[in-house]
């Protein structure tokens, strides 16, 4: 049966008819955190747009399994539901970072099948709106002179993406990341508030969560860590590259499935996502969630995750973690 299915999949791929195959009977997206966070958003994105485009007949359930920023969900899928064809799990570049640091337990990044990334956010570096500093260069120079006068805040612990982004900036200023005065706050909203209150002087965050505060004139984003300028509210903010610092930090959002999901079902999901990301329904949902276009699917995505994990391992070592 399995062989039949995989040969069916081969045939399907050969004729480019993957999307025409049957959808899994019951679909579910697992968010490895509380409702309301990034994983929830990632799940809602696929669940709402799949239903809106009628690519699945029945609504896709969104379920939550909190623990270790996705670690519990990762182990649950591998251990308990490795072959469930209808189950996709939300992931982000943060998952790759945790995998690189061995924080997902005994399993590594090869333990699941990575489906694809369907949108991305980018890291940003911000200061308070009333700060005299107006460019990344000024910030780096000021930081170099007086690293202790600039406590940094981010929405994650030491070793998280927000910490890492700040660490690469600190490194650019010749300050060892371990010497950063870093406060781990609860999410982007808290970071923006702490910046406004002057409790921290530099904020490390993501474009999606900081852009509204930038637009409202509460914080000043100095640089976006993307290859090109971002559309929308941040169009006036230069990239780090433009300012002479080769710092990029995409925060992709995507999905994986269990390790024993058949090739046929895996292919169905990849093809479905490939079709989905081109639909206006999906693009509207993506923009509403503050995500920028990105589609890396199937094998490409698998390679990307492995490359990211390798890069993060290197970064973590350099940062002295």
């Amino acid at each position, binding site marked *: 049966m399995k062989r039949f299915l995989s040969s069916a999949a081969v045939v399907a791929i050969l004729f480019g008819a993957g999307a025409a195959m049957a959808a899994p009977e019951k679909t579910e997206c697992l968010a490895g955190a509380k409702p309301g966070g990034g994983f929830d958003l990632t799940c809602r994105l696929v669940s709402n747009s799949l239903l809106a485009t009628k690519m699945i007949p029945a609504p896709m359930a*969104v379920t*939550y399994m909190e623990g*270790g920023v996705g670690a519990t969900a990762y182990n649950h899928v591998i251990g308990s539901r490795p072959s469930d064809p209808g189950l996709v799990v939300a992931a982000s570049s943060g998952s790759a970072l945790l995998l690189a640091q061995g924080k997902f*337990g005994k399993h590594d990044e090869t333990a699941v099948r990575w489906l694809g990334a369907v949108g991305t956010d980018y890291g940003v570096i911000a200061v308070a709106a009333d700060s005299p500093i107006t460019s990344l260069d000024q910030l780096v120079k000021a930081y170099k002179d007086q690293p202790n006068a600039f*406590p940094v805040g981010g929405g994650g612990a030491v070793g*998280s993406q927000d910490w890492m982004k700040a660490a690469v900036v600190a490194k650019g200023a010749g300050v060892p990341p371990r010497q950063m005065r870093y406060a*781990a706050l*609860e999410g982007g909203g808290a970071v923006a*508030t702490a910046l406004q209150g002057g409790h921290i002087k530099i904020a490390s965050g993501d474009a999606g969560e900081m852009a*509204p505060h930038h637009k409202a004139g509460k914080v000043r984003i100095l640089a976006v860590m993307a290859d090109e300028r971002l559309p929308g509210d941040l169009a006036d903010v230069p990239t780090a590259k433009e300012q002479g610092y080769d710092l990029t930090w995409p925060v992709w959002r995507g999905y994986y499935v269990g390790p024993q999901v058949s090739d046929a079902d895996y292919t169905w999901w990849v093809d479905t996502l490939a079709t989905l990301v081109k639909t206006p329904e999906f693009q509207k949902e993506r923009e509403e969630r503050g995500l920028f276009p990105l589609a890396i699917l199937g094998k490409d995505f698998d390679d990307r995750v492995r490359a990211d994990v390798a890069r993060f391992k290197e970064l973590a070592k350099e940062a002295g973690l």
Partner: protein
Amino acid sequence: MSLDYLWTGFGVALQWHNLMYGLAGCFLGTLVGALPAVGPINGIALLLPLLYSMGVPADSTMILLAGVYYGAEYGGRISSILLNVPGDAGAVMTALDGNPMARQGRAAEALAISGISSFVGGMIAVVGLTFFAPLLGQLAIGFGPAEYFVLMVFAFATLSSMVGHHPVKTMIGCVIGLALTTIGLDPTSGAYRFTFDEPELSSGIEFIILVIGLFSISEVLFMLEHQYHGRLKPIAVGRGFPSLATLRSCVGTVLRCSGIGFVVGVLPGTGASVASAVSYTTEKRLLDRGTFGKGDPRGLAAPEAANNAAAGGAFVPMLTLGVPGSGTTAVMLGALMLYNIMPGPQLFTERPDIAGGLIASMYIGNILLLLLNLPMVHVFVRLLTVPNWVLIPGILVLSFLGVYSMYASVLSIYMMLGIGVLGYAARKLDFDLAPIVLGFVLGRVAETNLRNALAISGGEVSILFESTISLVLWGMAVLVVLAPWYLHRRRRAAMAAAPDGTAA
């Protein structure tokens, strides 16, 4: 500040379909709050996608969800009072005096008092939200890690009133609570603590699991024990309404605790459970003459006023800063953003229908809830007449269902049961459970903020004494510890040789 948005809001909220949504929300919320384990956050997380996919407009969705939110704060008290099983996290303190009242045959009275306190707390919070929202948003900005830590010191200082007949046991309980919070991902360094390589422990012990274990499961064990010994007497339901004198005795408490609850609710990161804990301990410090914990109506009114006021207060930072004041408002913030509405001060001018509609619906919702709740007292107290062979398995099933549906893990069930057995043992040994819960609730906030504050200052302790807010809070902490002692001495001096026996 112009209140135009509020009139726009009443226009929106009084449309008949929005009234219906509000009523539905209040009803569902009461239900969700009354069930153990399932709190407002679950109710909202379940309803939001449903409403969104049904194409319900943003204003109606927010009105319904807000109804669920404060309806749950009303509902949580029912099982606390009647069964000593808190319906949600904010209702833990409600059981301390509410359940003894029920046991004394004053269940209906207790339900009525808590309903009225909830109403006043909720109303004061909405009025505060209406008039001071932008101002209070600024207050929240003033709170950095150092200020939050000192706030927690103040909260611990009010805790000293819990040191009743067994000061050592109270301290031990508090330390157990503090120790339990250290399990899981260290929020500052990202290291795992006491997780034994078990990924399911990585986020620590969930508060709700702790609460259900400590209270529901241990209560069930107690019921079984008493049943076995044949000591369970049916409890008299009591007359329906508290006397005017009782109500009058609660006025000061309700007003004070509404204020405390509202301010604590406004601060991001502290919610109904901290608010009700701080206000209960404050009132106990101020008023206790040995009656608190034994069915004092004021001990019941305090947490009830505070948790409803906190629920209202949590909307302030959410609406004005875009920073949620509690887990539940975090989900509602997500709801607003789903409808492409960005919270912030401009919300009041750009989308008065949403901001105003929401606030207006809270006025209406509170009145609806009071009207819904007072006549229902007689329906609720029927719970007491349910025979034990239905009640005990019922509580167990709801506890298991609630925990499993939230965390979908068998380990969480084991944890709940283990904690339940511990709670039973602790109660047998005459420990109070409240200090454990307080240590747990306050411990994590205190630790994270102390470490963040010291990280910012590079280890300089002076950061804790720098801002005016910190100094005021330190002063209040000292005052709350010393004032009763001083008052007591003065009273003793005044009474000259009168024998003493009422040390707080």
